[in-house]
């Protein structure tokens, strides 16, 4: 259960080091995307077309923020349930995506694809959305502006707190954590 400050994009060396249960403070650029954006990216991949963004080495944060008040960089911005992205995720990992931030369980296909592609799935604290918004220092739409809060944004983050749930070696904190604290 180590603690790391990590600069994005994720390098192979860092991914190799991260283990389920580690706390990571991310610094640098991450992208956002929810169901609608994932569907669009997935369809482009299926048709063999070029994506509007380069996802190689990137981290996608599953978030649909609340509107920003004047003067705020972003509104409340906690993670959404990752499982809704499961159908699209393996294709993105095959294209070089290296990290995902969300909350909740992933499918077996996604877990296998994480190991195969040497990637990592992080959890951010669901519902800690006001706190998380304070760690986002810049926010701009880079694709699909018509989707509103579901557009793809480029975020700059500082000490953005996440926890490794699924590491590149098959570690799974949702399983291990439960086993450790379960009382039979």
């Amino acid at each position: 259960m180590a603690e790391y400050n990590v600069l994005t994009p994720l390098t192979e060396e860092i991914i190799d080091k991260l283990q389920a249960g580690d706390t990571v403070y991310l610094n640098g650029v991450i992208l956002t995307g929810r169901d609608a954006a994932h569907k669009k990216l997935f369809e482009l991949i299926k048709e063999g077309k070029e994506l509007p963004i380069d996802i190689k080495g990137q981290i996608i944060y599953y978030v649909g923020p609340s509107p920003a008040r004047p003067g705020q960089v972003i509104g409340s911005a906690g993670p959404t349930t990752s499982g809704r992205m499961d159908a699209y995720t393996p294709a993105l990992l095959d294209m070089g995506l290296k990290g995902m931030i969300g909350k909740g369980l992933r499918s077996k296909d996604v877990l296998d694809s994480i190991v195969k592609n040497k990637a990592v799935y992080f959890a951010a604290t669901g519902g800690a959305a006001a706190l998380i918004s304070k760690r986002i220092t810049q926010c701009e739409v880079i694709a699909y502006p018509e989707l509103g809060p579901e557009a793809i944004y480029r975020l700059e983050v500082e000490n953005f707190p996440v926890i490794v749930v699924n590491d590149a070696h098959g570690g799974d904190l949702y399983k291990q954590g439960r086993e450790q604290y379960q009382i039979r």
Partner: protein
Amino acid sequence: MKTIKYDEIVNVVAGLCQEANYYLEEDVLNAFKENLKNEKSPLGISILNQLIENAEIARKERMPMCQDTGFAVFFVEIGQDVKIDGGLLDDAINEGVRKGYTEGYLRKSIVGHPLERKNTGDNTPAIIYTSIVKGDDLKITIAPKGGGSENMSGVKMLKPAQGVEGVKEFVIETVDKAGSNPCPPIVVGVGIGGTMEKAALLAKQALLRPLDQRHSDPSIAALETELLEKINKLGIGPQGLGGTTTALAVNIEIFPAHIASLPVAVNINCHAARHKTIVL
């Protein structure tokens, strides 16, 4: 006879939408602090601390504690001696939601058609449950409900012979399967009895009761306590990362049942257990 103006309801509802989303109720905050004392997992402790800090930031900056500001669900008790002047109650509530969510920088999370899925842009329509009561008060409660926890809820029509053991099994199974998805620590609302939809409604109403208040029937109160203990032994913990604080409370409501049925519903709420009430 008391007359309440349409516009007054609009403004009050707009305010309720915002307050419910900015200010976490004391009973929930206290439950975080109580559980901090007992939580065994270091990650669990750090999550609970984040949630306390999050509630403080939301309160101070008047920003929603969670970006999913929910489906606006209302429970309205209208005294039979109340007259609403200037329009329909449902219209006033919907106009209040429109105003509250837009002016309060709350997220609009409602699609107008469940299959076509185009956002209505103003978080309407609200879901409104109205009951007529004695007197001349209008009591409005809002309980904004996030999708993540709602999606992990369920109803089951048990056989009467399955009895209380069947109820326990279904509640535990529902929480167990939900795992990390509904943002634990959760609040578990349980409805037992009635018909299928009545049990579901009871489960939702159960979520309105303060977390530290047990059911008035001692046997149901004991069932609440027993289920909470069992749930907290599952090991799911804060955010599902492992730990002893999986649920903050189990609240049960009951209703008479048909001789042939034993409906049970579980409505899971996340730690953003929001509700606000006002009496006009």
